[in-house]
């Protein structure tokens, strides 16, 4: 059936997000919080995340344009960003954040800029994937996303 096919598709999509390490365990935690009272909880949280973190991304971008680089400030932003990203389970994004912070710590501006570019890429990629995922999920219906990977 259409619905079943969609469900399968959804499950595959979800699984691949995990397999490709875009998402980690924390995402599952979010999924577990989803219930009848909040049937779209995960989507809501992710949306909130992207909205809020966009500000941070912008702040970091601006800070990276300043010369000389204020590493502690950058680190502060990134620390926040990392906290947010990790709470939704954005694995790759989190990894890049950690790397960025390391560069900040040693004062490597070049490394920071490079890493930030990579981070933005991952960030955007994940956003697109999740958007597609949620779209399908809405079509499939509430109870479909609950299969745990692994």
């Amino acid at each position, binding site marked *: 059936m259409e619905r079943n096919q969609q469900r399968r598709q959804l499950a595959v999509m979800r699984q691949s997000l995990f397999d490709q390490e875009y998402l980690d365990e*924390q995402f599952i*935690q*979010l999924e*577990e*919080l989803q219930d009848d009272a*909040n049937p779209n*909880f995960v989507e*809501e*949280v992710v949306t*909130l*995340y992207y909205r*809020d*973190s966009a500000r941070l991304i912008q702040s970091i971008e601006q800070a990276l344009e300043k010369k000389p680089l204020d590493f502690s400030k950058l680190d*502060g932003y990134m*620390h*926040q960003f*990392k*906290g*947010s990203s*990790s*709470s*939704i*389970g954005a694995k790759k994004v989190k990894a890049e954040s950690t790397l960025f912070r390391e560069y900040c710590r040693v004062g490597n501006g070049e490394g920071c800029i490079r890493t930030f570019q990579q981070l933005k890429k991952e960030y955007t990629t994940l956003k697109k994937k999740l958007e597609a995922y949620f779209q399908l999920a809405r079509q499939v219906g509430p109870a479909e996303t609950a299969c745990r990977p692994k």
Partner: protein
Amino acid sequence: MNPSNGKGSISMASPSASWRAGDGVPDQFPAGLRVLVVDDDPTCLVILEKMLRKCLYEVTKCDRAETALSLLRENKNGFDIVISDVHMPDMDGFKLLEHIGLEMDLPVIMMSADDGKDVVMKGVTHGACDYLIKPVRREALKNIWQHVVRKRRNEWRDFEQSGSLEEGDRQQKQSDEADYSSSANEGNWKNSKKRKDDEEEPEERDDTSTLKKPRVVWSVELHQQFVGAVNQLGIDKAVPKKILELMNVPGLTRENVASHLQKYRLYLRRLSGVSSHPNNLTGSFMNPQEATFGQLSSLNGLELQSLAATGPFTAHSLATLQAAGLGRSTAKSGIHMPLVDQRNLFSFENPKLRLGEGQQQLMPSNKQIGLLHGIPTNMEPKQLANLHHTAQSIGNMNMQVNSQGGQNSQNNSLLMQMAQSQSRGQIPNEMTGGHVPRLPSTIGQPILTTGIGANVSPRNGIPENIRSAGYNPVSQTSSMLNFPMNNASELPVNGFPLGSTSGVSSLPSKGSFQPDVNSDIKGSVGFIPSFDIFNDLQQHKSQHWELDNVGITFDASRHSNSAQGSLDLAQSVLAHQGFPSGQMTGQNRNTATIGNTMFSSNNGTENGNAQNVSPHLNALLFDNPIRVKTETFHDSNPAIIFPEPFGQEDLMSALLKQQEGMPPAEHEFDIDGYSMDDISV
């Protein structure tokens, strides 16, 4: 007394508001737990809220610390627990933590993506009852209710204790410890805490839940006030009530002060008895003392005492001492250090506090004592406490004994005798016995108090002497006594290199101290005013203590003649020192004088050390008085320190008798590792 479900059975505990039927969620605990979440990250906030709701808690979210504070202030009893992020734009999470602790006394859990040890430690020192690493999992939130219960229980206990603080010290300590156990406390605490936890009952919880005794966060300023008040009153006279009056801080209860005082004492004790160095533990202080004990031993004790009596240690000096003692001279946070250290010390040190362990934490009489003088009693109480607890050692005993006997001469003579009669071997054995210290206490006390307190451990010269935590104080005396003996034997061998070091080099009676002593004590001079000084000192002590003197005395004592002479010397030293007797009660006086004398004599060697010693002494001294109060000193181990050789047996026994009460008490401390709950971290 059990709160009986908060049916008001306990006068203090009012029915637990949160969980009572009044809230609509009667006894479904932990469901209905009222949580306040503070985090500037909206994503995290939403997730946390959901997670907590899933745990059936009542959640209120807040994205700014200021808002959270006002919410809490408006609704003093509206929340049971607070979860806060560390990094927030408008206010640092730790600051919020302090505020909450001070004003509302609620358990606070810190959160952060940062899992660095420093940050977590900061959480501990600021009084957070737990620290969660982001991303937070639901499992981690499921059990946060334990912190609420724990706190309630502690509060409840504190209240119960309020009447009899002295006796309740222990209990309070327990409560405090329980409180602390939730945070990253050392295992020591857990032991004691376990005691309480085991009895945990819902009823208790209920009763205490409403009993929201505002938990006092002992910030640096507050602690300074506390210390000042204690010094003003004098270690031996520093009772919570009076301290409270002196401090005049609104909202501060006697219980708060009492438990803080308890910790402080432990801390001081720990300082003197436990140094970070293994040697220290043994009571580095004692070491030198031991050596000198031959003659000086008594002096040392006296000096120490005098030092102790000398009075108000400035927090700074204490800190320094601590630092020195611990070998760290981080003058970082002045009071904070001590507090923190105390905490740490207490918890960690307990086992290590060999205060009485005969280790020789006899502070280097000369220098140390001098230092001690400077060192306000701040340290002492704590130290004493520490000493008592950990050492239970002779040091305490000594102190007590001294105070009791107030007989410097007696002490001295005891010491001397001990020294003379004892052979090295004996003392160590005795010391370890843990209660040996008792005997010498009188003698050693004065001395011990200062530096010994912590390390008074019978100088077995074994850094490990700190055996019985409780007996350290006693051991101190013994160490003192021992010193002569041990030192005598050892000294010759070592040639008292220690003498040079000003540290309280508690000469390891075995002469093994020497190496340790020297190193440590020296440092003490520049310590940060932390309670650790004692510890550090102790370490050094072994060597530093007036080794010079010690050596001399030892020989003298060895010959069992000079001992007497040393006493005189010690006494004179004390006299010179101008030992402020204010602080010390009768007991202290004696010890103080002794200490003073010691110093005088020792002054030559190391001025710096003396200072170090002072704090210890003070601590010791103070501690002793305190101990006396709380514990009826019985000489549980009359011959703890010097088992047989003591000719003084009788005297010692008498002394010990008083101490008797102590050792047992001491142990408690030992275990607990000192709940520093009240101590602001």
